[in-house]
C-alpha cells in the first residue's frame, strides 16, 4: 500500500493521471472512483493517506472518498497478497461444485476466505457472481478469469502463480 510514502509523494505521483481523469467529468467528485482505482493500481490497495491525497487532488471532502472506498468491494483496504484469488461462490458456480473447490483452496493455502497466506503470496476471497457463469465454477486470479475449474486445475494454477511476481497492475 502507500506505506513509507508521504502524502505529498502520493499526491505528486497521482497528480498527472488524476488531472487527466478529471477532464472526463463535469464535476471533480466523479473522479473519485477512477482516482482510487489509479491509486490501487499503483500501490496495490487504498488507505487513509490515499483518501486524503485523492480528496486534496480533487478538492472534495475526505469523507466522500472514504465513503466510496468502503462501499465498493473491489477497493482493497487491507494489504493483499501478491496474487488475489477470487473464487465465485454464487449460485451457478455453487451448483457446479464451488463449495468443494473453496474447501480445497482453503486447505491448500491454509487460510480462510478473506485471508492472506503467511508468505504473502496469496489472498483468497469468496466473491459474488463474476459474470462468467458459462465457465462455472470460475475464479479470477488477479485480472485473469479461469473457468471450468477442478481440483487438479486449481493445483496447477496455484503452482504456476506461486513463483510469479505480482502481476503488472496497470
Amino acid at each position: 500500500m502507500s506505506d513509507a510514502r508521504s502524502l505529498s509523494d502520493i499526491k505528486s505521483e497521482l497528480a498527472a493521471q488524476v488531472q487527466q481523469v478529471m477532464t472526463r467529468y463535469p464535476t471533480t467528485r466523479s473522479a473519485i472512483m477512477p482516482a482510487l482505482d489509479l491509486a490501487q493500481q499503483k500501490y496495490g490497495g487504498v488507505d487513509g493517506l490515499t483518501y486524503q491525497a485523492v480528496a486534496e487532488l480533487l478538492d472534495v471532502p475526505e469523507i466522500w472518498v472514504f465513503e466510496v472506498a468502503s462501499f465498493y468491494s473491489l477497493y482493497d483496504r487491507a494489504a493483499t497478497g501478491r496474487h488475489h484469488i477470487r473464487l465465485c461462490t454464487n449460485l451457478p458456480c455453487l451448483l457446479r461444485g464451488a463449495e468443494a473447490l473453496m474447501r480445497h483452496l482453503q486447505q491448500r493455502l491454509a487460510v480462510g476466505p478473506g485471508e492472506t497466506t503467511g508468505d504473502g503470496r496469496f489472498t483468497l476471497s469468496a466473491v459474488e457472481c463474476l459474470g462468467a457463469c458459462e465457465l462455472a465454477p470460475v475464479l479470477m486470479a488477479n485480472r485473469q478469469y479461469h473457468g471450468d475449474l477442478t481440483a487438479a486445475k486449481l493445483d496447477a494454477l496455484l503452482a504456476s502463480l506461486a513463483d510469479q511476481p505480482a502481476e503488472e497492475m496497470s
Partner: protein
Amino acid sequence: MVTCIFDGQTLEVDPGTTILTAARQVGTDIPTFCYHARLSLSASCRMCLVEVEGRKKLEPACATVIAPDMVIHSQSARVVTTRQDMLEILLANHPLDCPVCDKGGECELQDTVYQYGKGDSRLRDPKRVFREADIELNKVIVFNANRCIQCQRCVRVCEEIVGDVALGTAERGLDSEITGVGNSLKDCSHCGNCIEVCPVGALMSIPYRYKARPWDLEKTETICGMCGTGCAFTVETAEGAFKRVKSDPDTGLNKELLCAKGRFGFDAIDGGRRIEQPMIRKNGALEVVSWNEAIAAVATKACDIKARQGRIQGHISPRQTNETGFVFQQMMRRVFETQDVHSSTRFSGLDSPDAVTALARLVTGPMQRRPLQSLLEADCIFLLGANITEENPVSGYLVRSAMNAGAKRLIIASSRPCGLDPIAAATLRLLPGNEADLLSRLIADTPQIQSNPADQFAHKAAGLLAGSKHIALLIGTEFLRSPKAAECLRWIEQAVRHFGAQGKKLDLQFLFDRPNQLGLWDMGCLAGLAPGWQGIHTASPANDGPVDLHYVVGADPLHSILHPATDAKPPFLVVHSSHYSKAAEQADVLLPAPSYGEEDGTYTNNEGRVQSLRSVRSPKQDLLGARQVFNLISGAMRQRPLPVDADQIRDKIAAVYPVFGQFDQGLGRTVAAMAYSWPEAGPLLQGVAPPPPDDSGPRTCRSLLSGDTLFQSGQLAARSSVLSSLDNGAYVEMNPGAGAEHAFEGLRVTLSVAGKSFTAPLKVNHSFDAETVFVPERFLREHGQGFLSGVEYPCLVEVALSGSGDPSETG
C-alpha cells in the same frame, strides 16, 4: 388546487403537496423516521407507506406528491400491517437497551413502537452486535453504532444545512455505519445538529452523556445569548444544575438548529469568576463593602462631577436585556444628565454623529423587521461585510438551506473566508471599511473592468444583482469598527435607493455578533439616539474632554476605549457586572449583577423579533438586580425613582416605541410607519476613491482582523469550558502563501505594532487574502496588550513567521 380523498375526507391541497404534508395539515399522524422537513427527501425508512388506490405498491407518504383525484388510505389494514412489519424488521437488530440509553423517554423509535408496534416480535434469532464500544467522534459527539437506524438525517443535516460534510457512511448494506474520516470528524464545526436530528440514541452529546434522564429535567425556554441570530432553545436543569441545551423543531427562527456556541456553550453560566459582593477601591485595593456604601460612593462621585460639569460616559454590553438597557439610558440621561451612552465598546465608527444619523436612516427605513426566512426567499442573497458562518452560524445555516431550495444566487464580500464561499456565485475578500468603495463601484453606471479583484467582483456582482428581482442584503457590523463607518452606511443607503429605483425589492438586515445590539439601540443606548430611534436634538453641552466617570454595565471596554492620554488621570471607573474582567480588576467601584441565565427580560434579534429571556436559576440571595441598583443610585442622588419591574418597563418602552414586541403581530406596524426627524440623506454621493493600489513587493505588514469564531463569542463563550476545550488555545490564522503543507507545520507567527507584540501558532487558511491576518478577539483580549485599541480598525501589524516552538505557550 388539487383535490384528493384522504382517509375518506375530501381535501384541497396546493399543487406539489405530499401526502405526508397533507396528512399533517389535517392532524393525521403518519409515522416517519428518515423524513425531516429541512432535509432532502430520502424515503428510505419505509415507515410512512400508505395505500394509493390504483397503485400496486404502497407509496411513501413523505415523497409522494398528491395527484388530482388521488384516493389515499393511511390507516387501512394493509397499511397498518405493513407498519407493524417495518417496525418488527427495524427492531430485529436494534438493541433494546432503552434503560441505559440517553435517548430513552424521548426516542422516536421507542415512541413509534409504542404507538404502532405489534407488541411482540416473531424474529427470535440473536441480534447482531455491531460494535461493543461506543465511538467518541470528537470532544462533544459520541456514536453508538448498534442503535443507528440508518435514517441518514445526521449525514444530511451535516452536509445540506451545516455544510461541513464531516459525517458520512462507511460500508454498505447491514454493515453501513455512520462515521467520519478515520472514525473521527474532520472539518466538524461541533454544532451537534446531528445529535439533535438523530431519532434514536445513536449520536449523543458527550457533555450530557449519562447526566440525567429526560423526564427528570426541568425545562426553561429561553434565547441563546451568543449572537444576534437569537436562536430559541430549551435549557434543561436538574435541581438547579445545568444539564443540557435542546432545541425544538417548532420553535424560533432556528427551529431545531443550533451552532456549537448555542448547543454546547451554556455551561458558561457556571464558568468564570463571579463578582460576589460590592467592592470599593481603598488604598489601591478592592475591598468588600455594603450595597449602601457602594451605591453612595457612585452617587457622590456622580453628583460631584455633574456639579462641575464634568464628563460621564456609560457603556452597556449588548448582552444586557432591553429592559435593563432602557433603564440604563434613563439613568444616564436623566440622572447623570449625559448623552454619552454606548452599547458597543467596539463600534468606534459610530462616535461620529454623521454615522449615527446614517445608521438611524437605515434602521428606520430599508431595514426589515421580518423573519429572516422571508428575506431568504429573495432570488439574490448578498452578504456584505459579514463573517456569517463564524459569527452567526445558524443564520449561515439558514442561508445555506435557502440556497438548496432553488435557483438563487449568493454574493459574498467579507473580510474573512466563509463557509458559504464555495456555493457563492461571486466572492471577494475586502477590508472592513471598504464596503463603501465596493458599493460605489457596484452601482456605478459603467463599472470599469480592471484586473483588480474588487473590480472584477463588482462587475460580476453587478450582473447578478441586475438579473435579480428581489435582493436580500445582509450586512455585518465589522465596518462599524472602522473610521469609514459613516461612509459605508451612506453608501449602503445609496445602494438601497439605487436598486429601489430600478424597481427591485431590496430587503436589508444586519447580522450582529451580539444578542441584543439592535435591542439596545432601539432602547436608545447610543449617543444621539433616544428610545425608538428618535433623534436627540437638544444636544448636551459638547464635552470632548477626558471622561471623569465611566459607568460600565456588563461590558469590558478596557481593551478598546479607555485610552486616556498618558498624562491624564484615569476616570473614576464603575463596573457593574456579573463576572470579573480586565476592566473589573481596575474598577473604583465594583457592583455585582446577575448573569445571563439568572434574569428574565427580552432580547431583540437581528430580525427585530423581541424574544423572552428566562432565568434558568435564581441569582444568589443578596444579589440586587441591575435595575434595582440603578434605582437606588437615582434615589441616592435625590432624583425620581427609576422603574425596576420588567412589565412596567415594557409598558414604558411601548409608550415611546409602539412597535416594541409587535414582531409577530407586526406587519403594517413597522418602524418605518412612525415619524422620525432624521435629516434627509444628502445629495448623491460621488464615487469613493479606490484604496491605493498595493505596491507589490515583499510585504511584512498585514491588516489585523479580529472577531468571533465558531467557538467564540466574547466573554460569554470564553467562560464555557466545553467551548474553550474546542479551541486548543490561541492561534494566528492567515494565508502564508503557496507552499507544501509540511513547510508550515509548527510555525509560529509574531504580530507587532508600536512596541506591542503577540505570538501564537500559525493556522494556515488559504482562503484568506494575502493582506490580512486574523486572531480571534478572545486571544487578543486575554493577551491584554490592547491590540485593538488604536483608532484604526483594522490596524496594520508587522507579521513575522518563526520556526516551531512549544505550541502551548502564547504571547
